């Protein structure tokens, strides 16, 4: 049996008809065409599908679309566009924070949520926080550098004593 749901995605009111077994990730990609949210493992392990639910990061593969009825979702498409990138996307560009780009939307959404928290981050804290997002290309240094650049610009960064990033 399908369910009629309403949710706000990147500020747009959306109405969807979904089978209960459809995940939020599949609804975003398949029904709304928002394929920037990537599906890696589909079992919560990789973090590529991370989106923001009421401003907090969640795995969109571990949430049913029907559970998101009435919720506010932000995806990578809500940030910027080619030629008008978001400062966080710009930081990833400047610091070469990606290679194949598969994990990037999840990384960006995760760091975006970090920057909205009322606290500062240092490198060990950021690295531990990003442990939920797997990258198979970069070795993480450039991702951490990208995130640090953005967080610093937002006044949310504390340099570690060694000043490693």
């Amino acid at each position, binding site marked *: 049996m399908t369910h009629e749901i309403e949710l706000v995605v990147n500020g747009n009111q959306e109405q969807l008809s979904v089978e209960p077994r459809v995940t939020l990730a599949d609804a975003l990609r398949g029904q709304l065409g928002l394929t920037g949210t990537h599906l890696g493992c589909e*079992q919560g392990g990789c973090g590529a599908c991370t989106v923001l639910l009421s401003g907090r990061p969640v795995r969109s593969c*571990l949430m*049913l679309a029907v559970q998101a009825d009435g919720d506010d979702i932000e995806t990578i498409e809500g940030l910027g566009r080619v030629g008008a990138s978001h400062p966080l996307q710009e930081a990833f560009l400047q610091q070469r924070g990606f290679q194949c780009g598969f994990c990037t939307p999840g990384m960006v959404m995760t760091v975006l949520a970090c920057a909205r928290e009322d606290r500062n981050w240092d490198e060990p804290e950021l690295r531990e926080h990003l442990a939920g997002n797997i990258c198979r290309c970069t070795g993480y240094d450039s991702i951490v550098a990208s995130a640090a650049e953005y967080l610093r610009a937002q006044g949310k960064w504390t340099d570690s004593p060694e000043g490693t990033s």
Partner: protein
Amino acid sequence: VKSAAFDFVRATSIDDVVRLLATEDARVIAGGQSLLPVMAMRLGFPSLVVDVNSVAAMKTLAVEAGRLSCGAAVTQTAFYQAMTEHVPHAELFRALISHIGHDAIRNRGTIGGSICHADSSAEWPALVLVLGAEMQVAGPAGERVIPAEEFFVGPFMTVLEPGELLTHVHIPLTGFTTWGFYEVARRAGDFALAGCVVVADADRESVNEARVALFGCAGVPLRLRELEDLVAGRSWPDALQAVREFRFEHELAGDLHASSEARAHLARGAIRRALTSARDRTDQGEQR
């Protein structure tokens, strides 16, 4: 990895949930952080999934008369944020929760879900065991209360009967003055290879009484009563020596990640570190 088809209902009261759980093969979903992978990998095929996130009575969190009563559908993040300095031993809960998965998992995953999923490498089952918490359960025959000690019966198995729902967890906050927590995992947020949570009545010099639980070491969380007897009434150096020499009564789990012997080594290390941090905490005026 896509789930088989199922029906879905968003319940709004405990009675609602219990009524719906009478359906054959019905399952409760809260955060879904364990259930959805199980379903996606087709290890589980519920015919009906009952969402409890809109059951207000299961979202409550109250500290009263030395105990903490937590609705089963409270998320890890909500619980963590409620652990302010006004809550006795708040830092114990914060330390433990920060080891559960990752931020994105904790934003959805719930206390009750973690306890009912009963993964033996999970943190909450060991914590409720060591603190002597009680599980408040609703079912077709009415309510019952189950001590944590009787709740976990095997890997991913609890004493809950089909049709029963964990509604609240009641956690005593008294009977100990210090605590320690240590977890060994290959990556922050990964499943524990071995972990230990300790609560103790102790001062800077010695342990009066300690309760010790392990997770990630067997099919269920383990309470180490034999070791507790060995450390009770001992000075800290003697208590830590007793851990070094401790031989586990049963062989610990061996798997791809650690042989039984390796796990026993990691477990002893985790216990020692948890106890050491409990000792160090007595210096910091943690006692209440």
